């Protein structure tokens, strides 16, 4: 593997790993707080799987000499993270531990639905990657992630169709998430290197496939299509992040950082 190719693989792996880590971290904060008990079972299972997907990507990075899996997940500072900004955003007002959590379920449903829909497009593309470990990983992740997408799509459709306050909140959440969902589609400043090496297809191609699905779904549900996905707060792939990410990393690594040599 030549240096340039390896750099491109490493770059994409960090994006994939950090996206899955942050979205599952935010999922873990919902434990015990979701609307009903069956959802608690489902969402925590999805979160556990997704954390597993992040671990597999970090594992490949470890094999490529980037450092230990746990260090990669827990010890990298915010400005080195490659996740999309929308995935680091807090679930809503309050905190599960320090103050009354008043999290936003509509935001959570919409964020997860769009995220899983884009993840599916990336996974399908990675099955044709020139990098064999990513092909194998994509095939395996797809067997699990299809259930995640099905789950969030069900919530999305039901809350829109419910009308009333549910529909209003969902529409507000769609508007909010759409402003930054472009960050999940982004392949970052090094896109050309990644794409020309055949590791994944271009952002434009992935976006077109995602938007085709969304247009169909929005029409089916009688929703107005919001147009071009935005990236208003910047590109997480380029190291642009918010305070929410710093808070997330500080919390998720609190125990590990006490003494990384200790097996917990």
């Amino acid at each position: 593997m030549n240096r340039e190719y390896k750099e491109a693989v490493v770059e994409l792996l960090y994006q994939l790993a950090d996206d899955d880590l942050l979205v599952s971290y935010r999922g873990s904060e919902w434990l015990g707080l979701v609307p009903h008990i069956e959802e608690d079972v489902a969402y925590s299972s999805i979160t556990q799987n997704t954390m597993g997907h992040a671990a597999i990507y970090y594992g490949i990075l470890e094999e490529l000499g980037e450092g230990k899996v746990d260090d990669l997940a827990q010890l990298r500072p915010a400005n080195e993270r490659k996740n999309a900004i929308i995935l680091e955003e807090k679930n809503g007002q309050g905190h599960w531990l320090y103050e009354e959590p008043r999290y936003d379920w509509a935001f959570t449903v919409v964020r997860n639905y769009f995220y899983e829909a884009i993840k599916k497009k990336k996974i399908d593309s990675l099955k044709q990657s020139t990098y064999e470990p990513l092909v194998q990983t994509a095939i395996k992740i797809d067997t699990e992630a299809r259930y995640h997408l099905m789950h969030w799509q069900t919530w999305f459709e039901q809350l829109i169709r419910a009308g009333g306050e549910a529909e209003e909140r969902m529409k507000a959440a769609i508007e909010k998430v759409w402003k930054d969902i472009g960050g999940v589609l982004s392949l970052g400043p090094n896109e050309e290197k990644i794409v020309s090496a055949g590791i994944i297809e271009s952002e434009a191609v992935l976006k077109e496939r995602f938007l085709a699905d969304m247009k169909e779904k929005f029409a089916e549900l009688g929703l107005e299509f919001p147009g071009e996905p935005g990236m208003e707060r910047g590109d997480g792939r380029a190291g642009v992040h918010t305070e929410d990410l710093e808070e997330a990393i500080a919390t998720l690594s609190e125990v590990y950082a006490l003494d990384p040599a200790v097996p917990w």
Partner: protein
Amino acid sequence: MTMAKMSLESVVRQQLETVCDPEIFTVSILDLGMVENISVREGTVTVELLPTFLGCPALGIIKENVIDAIRQLEEVKEVEVNYIKSPPWTTDRITEKGRQGLKEFGIAPPPAKLEDDGTWEVSCPYCGSKQSRVENIFGPSACRSILYCKQCKNPFEAMKPISTM
């Protein structure tokens, strides 16, 4: 020489019959279809396993249990156990014996396939009725779903179908 090599391999395989899923102790990892490869070279045993679900917390425990079980064999000098990425583990790798073991434990074996409309046909592990409905695709662990039998009116768990199709 070849004979000896063959026999240690089969001894290892036999020993792996004793390693079960830590939460479903009626099914060995062999019957779960997790063991992809066993190779022996001058007393060093290498076992390649397939992860069932990538985030399953039992994976680490199973790996340790495999190492412990093989270390008990006198002929073995060293053991190496690795999870490999390919082929992907799918529920059709579970053997007939494994399916029976799941039933004994009260878990319905996974359906052969998912219908096109996303539904699946599972027999209730208590009364055998196929009149069941999926209550939750997700369950108390990554590999299980929660169902309800309309015939005997018991809730039950079924192994979630995993396939690359």
